[in-house]
């Protein structure tokens, strides 16, 4: 990983994204739909990796931030029907507020304790959504009156370029001095503080960035799907899928999250003939990767390239 410069990786990424832009000419709308979802999940995984891989915070609740953004946008659209970009911006803003709320315990408790706090945050949000059914649609879900567009190809391009831009920003951030300080405070907060870095400020920034992209992607996903529900955006299993994507792709690589997300969605699609057993096989494969190749796909890719 260290052998390639930031600009070179971003250029390679740009090439891949441009190549992927031509996909709508080749494949059916169904596959485009799957890829669109995979790209949004890729953003979720990248935002999670910034918190875990760099700031060292075990966040079991990525869906707390996503759900906050998605439901804020959806409810706003349902009540007042402002232009979609206003809803999406409001969703991202609400998620940032959620990120600050989540960051407060993180500055106080560490490791498994913080992990549990995030888990509790998700359960609380889920309870709130289910109990407040008149506003949120409860367990059935919330249907929004507007969608961005009904064209598969346009949706695909929006998701692709949104993912590309978010990825570039998050990746550049992780490679910047700020990213290094974050990594240092994740590994040894006391020593990083002793070197004169403001650990609290940097961690708070990591939470805000992660929350911003999670909430933005969550809100956009609502206007792609035309609905928001606990089962698709908030449930713990969704959070687990995001974590698996990030770990499979390679933690502390940011961009690996996209590979992991695409892999997960492609796998569950390829294994659909197995019926109910397909999930079992997907999770078993993820477990094998975690046990045998802990550095993930991205780690394998860059390691094989290093000797040359």
């Amino acid at each position: 990983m260290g052998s390639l410069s930031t600009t070179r990786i971003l250029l390679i990424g740009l090439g891949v994204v441009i190549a992927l832009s031509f996909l709508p000419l080749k494949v059916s709308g169904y596959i485009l739909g799957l890829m669109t979802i995979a790209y949004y999940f890729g953003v979720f995984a990248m935002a999670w990796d910034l918190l875990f891989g760099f700031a060292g915070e075990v966040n079991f609740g990525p869906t707390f931030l996503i759900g906050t953004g998605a439901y804020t946008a959806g409810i706003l659209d349902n009540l007042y029907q402002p232009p979609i970009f206003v809803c999406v911006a409001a969703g991202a803003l609400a998620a940032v507020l959620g990120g600050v709320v989540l960051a407060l315990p993180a500055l106080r408790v560490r490791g498994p304790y913080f992990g549990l706090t995030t888990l509790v945050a998700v359960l609380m949000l889920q309870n709130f959504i289910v109990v407040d059914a008149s506003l949120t649609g409860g367990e059935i879900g919330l249907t929004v009156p507007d969608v961005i567009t009904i064209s598969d190809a346009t949706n695909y391009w929006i998701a692709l370029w949104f993912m590309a831009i978010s990825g570039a920003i998050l990746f550049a951030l992780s490679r910047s001095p700020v990213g290094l300080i974050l990594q240092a405070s994740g590994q040894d907060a006391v020593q990083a503080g002793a070197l004169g870095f403001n650990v609290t400020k940097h961690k708070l920034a990591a939470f805000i960035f992660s929350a911003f992209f999670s909430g933005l992607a969550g809100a956009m996903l609502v206007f792609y799907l035309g609905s928001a529900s606990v089962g698709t955006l908030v449930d713990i299993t969704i959070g687990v899928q995001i974590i698996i994507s990030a770990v499979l792709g390679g933690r502390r690589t940011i961009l690996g999250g996209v590979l992991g997300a695409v892999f997960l969605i492609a796998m569950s699609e390829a294994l659909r003939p197995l019926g109910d057993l397909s999930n079992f096989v997907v999770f078993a494969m993820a477990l094998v990767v975690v046990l045998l190749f802990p550095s993930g796909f991205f780690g394998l890719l860059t390691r094989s390239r290093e000797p040359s």
Partner: protein
Amino acid sequence: MVFWQILVDGFAISSLYALGATGFALIFGVSGVLNLSHGALMVAAVVAAWAAGNNLHVGPYAGAAIGIAVGFAATLVTYFLIVKPLQQTRKIREEEKEIFILTATLLWGIMIQELIAYIYTNNAKTVAPIVNGVISIFGVRTPQNEIFTAVVCWLAIGVLWLLVNRTRAGKAVLAASMNPRGVTLLGVELSHVYIAVWAIYGVLVGIAGVLLGMFLGVSSYSVGPLTASAFSIVVLGGLGSVSGALIAAYIVGYLETITAYLISPAYRTIPALLLLVAVMYVSPRGLLGRR
């Protein structure tokens, strides 16, 4: 009337929580592992006992024995297949092993859940209880099964206490939870201690699972909530402290029962979660935590 009802009902459920969380606290205390497949292992024990009763038509005692055996076996498989390789690998840095064990056991738990749902569907399963009938305590009609559950839980916890405090192997386990390096210096093989602790944990998971199956019944959806309740009880009590976990189990059990009776069963878990967050803010070590 409601007061006595809460007192009696809450006691049974709390005892069950206590037994479930004891093993979870024990393996964390000794080996620093938070096993997120905990709920799945319990559900596996229940489903085995249920399948033995339904498909093989064995009696309740044989069914319970099969359930405990499967819980035990599944726990040891978890240790040897997932936890041990991750603890010993050199590919992961020490400080990152925790998150890898969390992720891997979480995945393993979901795999067990999916497999059970695939073979036996998502329907709720109740194990035929060993004791039947109803008696009256303080005017509350109580199924004898509830009393049986509480008694067995406390017997198992009592045996565990004797094992840990009165036998040589148990004392090694206790010492390992206080200072692993010190125990190694005294010539105790740490890997043997780990295997012993996981074996004890397996038996506890099996017993707690089968009792849960007789008392409330489970479905493959119970996996997450069961893990979450054990996790929160152990954190509330203080990670690594078995007596803290016992106290916390009663606090959580009674809070849930009171909420379910006086407010609404829909809000059952919320006060316990709020209490957990509050305790973590005030004292992140929990009630009796050492680490």
